[in-house]
Each structure stands twice: as structure tokens, then as C-alpha cells.
């Protein structure tokens, strides 16, 4: 088995959690009210915990002296392979909830499959993550419903958030060379098979929220190959600042 391909596979899972966790942490002390501030911080922490598990595993596959911190803080934008949706700015609260809702629904289904992976470590992390993602999904989907089926203004903002982020959702289901290889080896997940279930979940929640499912007019991707939107660089410059200014600093 090619360790390099497994490394790339695990890296994407770690990058998704890391970048989404960093985005969510930007809400800390700016939440719309105290309980929600705490909720977003909690979810962010779960993401960092998950990122740590995946990146530690990735680092062990890389061998030599690479650590999870090296992967998080010493790679450039083009070396990150997270899905573009994760790096999208927080925007208003509706934007953050739409992003979270799309990703929670995806990862809930993804981890259920990954739990069956023949790779023991991936299966263990997946089993752990499912439980947390179930809570996250309940939180984000409830907000989509509450805001969609709320006031005229909240409805309009929620619909516009769903519309604006829709173009990034297709990438979640794209299967590249790494994914196909991992699937053949019964390590990875067949994202095409979870697409129908994801569509169903999205449709159910959007319908309860009185929101419209957008058309697939122009879908974009490239994150897996390191082609990101301009937002990732800014996020990294903030996240990696300390390690770049004071290499190998510890506390």
C-alpha cells in the first residue's frame, strides 16, 4: 500500500477539521449571545481535537521527525488540501450556520462509512467523531430551520447564505485519485454513495426551514489540489503567525 496516498487522504481530513476549527474560533467573544458564543467555541474545540488526531496520524505516516504541529503551522496555502467550503469566511451568523450545516450533514454520513474502514486508526477516529458530529448537526440544522422559518429578515439572510455557499458543496463528493485508491483498498469512503442521502437530509431541513434548494449553476472545487479561494491565505497568516515569527516556539 502506498503510504503517500494514505498520508494525503488523512491530511485532507485533518485540514478540513483544522481550517473549520480556526474559522469557528474567530467567533469567540463575538457570538450573537453568550450561549451561542460558548456553543461555537465548543464546536471549534471539537474540530481542533479532531484535527489533532488526524494530523498526528498523518505525521506518523510521514515518518522522520514530522509532528502534527509542523503540518498545521509550517505548510503554505498550496499545501493545504481542505475542501474550499471549510475556509469560507464566517460572514454573518446565517453564513456560519449554512457552512456548518452543509459540512455537518456531510461528515455525519462520511464518518459512519469511515468507521467501517479497514484502517484501524481511521476507523477509531471516525467512531469518536460521529458522536460529536451528531451534536453539531443537531445544532446547525436547528438554526437553519429557526432562521429560515423565522422573521422575513432572518429568512432572507438564511436563504442568501444557502445560495452563496451552495457552489462549494459539490466538491465534498468529488472522488480524486487518492480517494479512489483508498476506496479500492477498503480504507476510504465512496463519497458518491453518500451524496443521495446528503441530498435527502438537505432537502428535508431546507423544506422545514421554508427555504429553497439552489440550482447547481456554477459549482467550484480545487481545494483538494491546493487551489484555494483567497480567504485561506488570510486565515493561515493569522493562524501561523507565531510559528512563522518565532519558529519552534513552545509554551
Amino acid at each position, binding site marked *: 500500500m502506498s503510504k503517500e496516498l494514505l498520508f494525503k487522504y488523512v491530511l485532507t481530513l485533518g485540514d478540513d477539521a483544522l481550517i473549520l*476549527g480556526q474559522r469557528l474560533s474567530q467567533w469567540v467573544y463575538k457570538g450573537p449571545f453568550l*450561549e451561542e458564543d460558548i456553543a461555537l467555541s465548543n*464546536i*471549534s474545540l471539537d474540530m481542533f481535537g479532531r484535527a489533532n488526531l488526524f494530523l498526528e496520524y498523518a505525521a506518523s505516516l510521514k515518518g522522520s521527525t514530522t509532528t502534527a504541529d509542523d503540518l498545521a503551522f509550517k505548510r503554505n496555502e498550496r499545501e493545504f488540501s481542505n475542501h474550499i467550503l471549510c475556509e469560507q469566511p464566517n460572514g454573518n451568523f446565517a453564513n456560519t450556520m449554512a457552512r456548518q450545516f452543509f459540512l455537518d450533514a456531510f461528515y455525519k454520513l462520511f464518518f459512519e462509512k469511515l468507521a467501517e474502514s479497514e484502517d484501524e486508526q481511521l476507523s*477509531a477516529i471516525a467512531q*469518536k467523531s460521529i458522536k460529536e458530529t451528531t451534536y453539531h448537526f*443537531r*445544532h446547525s440544522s436547528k438554526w437553519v430551520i429557526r432562521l429560515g422559518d423565522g422573521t422575513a429578515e432572518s429568512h432572507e439572510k438564511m436563504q442568501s447564505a444557502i445560495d452563496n455557499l451552495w457552489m462549494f458543496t459539490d466538491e465534498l463528493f468529488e472522488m480524486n485519485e487518492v480517494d479512489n485508491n483508498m476506496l479500492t483498498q477498503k480504507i476510504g469512503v465512496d463519497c458518491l454513495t453518500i451524496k443521495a442521502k446528503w441530498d435527502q437530509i438537505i432537502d428535508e431541513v431546507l423544506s422545514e426551514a421554508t427555504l429553497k434548494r439552489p440550482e447547481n449553476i456554477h459549482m467550484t472545487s480545487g481545494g483538494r489540489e491546493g487551489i484555494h479561494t483567497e480567504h485561506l491565505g488570510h486565515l493561515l497568516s493569522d493562524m501561523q503567525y507565531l510559528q512563522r515569527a518565532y519558529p519552534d516556539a513552545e509554551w
Partner: protein
Amino acid sequence: MVKEISTHTIWELLKTIPDPEIPAISIVDLGIVRKVYFEETTLYITVTPTYSGCPAMSFMKDEIIRHLELQGITNCQINTSLAPAWTTDWMSDEVKTKLKEAGIAPPSAEINCPQCDSKKVQVVSEFGSTACKALYKCLDCLEPFHHFKPI
């Protein structure tokens, strides 16, 4: 020197280490200590994280080392296992009673107010002051309280 100590003694010692965020229960009550065994002269302790991002995990590991060192046990290695994933099902009824006495509704599908036992409770936030708790309030006695989330 380590060999003379039984694993039973180690378990008893671990039971005296409080959960840093819910000091009413010990780290053993919480269910994060999975295995205690000796190999040659080294003591191995296997722990499992509650939530993957729980910031108290590293502190709890440090506390285990510190408590063991106080007893003169320095040859100890702590390993982390992820599977089976931690679940609140591992908590005994005795532990659940301790939580209730501390004002935290124990993990269960039916949530009663830990103060007045009322069933009329309302969720305030699914996410509380720690990863493992949700925030509720009682509609009868009006007290806010934490619920230890069942996972």
C-alpha cells in the same frame, strides 16, 4: 520497587484524582481510565478522551503522573486509546447520584431538575461550560442547571 504495588492499589489511587472540571467525581468515575497493568517494572495506564477536543485531557494525564510520583511511582507510561469511543454508558448509578448531588443532571434520555426533580425543564443551550455538558433551566423551581450529555 514498582512491582510490589498491585494494580488494585493503583486503581484506588486513581479514584482519588478528581475530574478537574467536575470535581464531584473522579477520573475513574468519568470512565476515562480504561486499563492499568504492569509490564516488567513499568506501569502502563490506558486512557481514552471524553471529547476529542477536551482541553482537560492533558491536565488529567499530568495529574495522574503527579499523583503517582507522590507515591514514589515514577516508571509510568500513559497511552491513549480511541476505540471503543468513550461513552457515558460506562458511568455507574453511584456516579450518576454523585453528579445529581453536585447539581448536574446525570446522562439520561429523560432529564429531571437535579434540585427539585421536576420534569418540566427547558434546554437553554446544547453546549455548556464544558464539552460534556448542556445548559438547561427548570421551569418549576427556575434554577438553571447543567446536564451531562449522553453520548
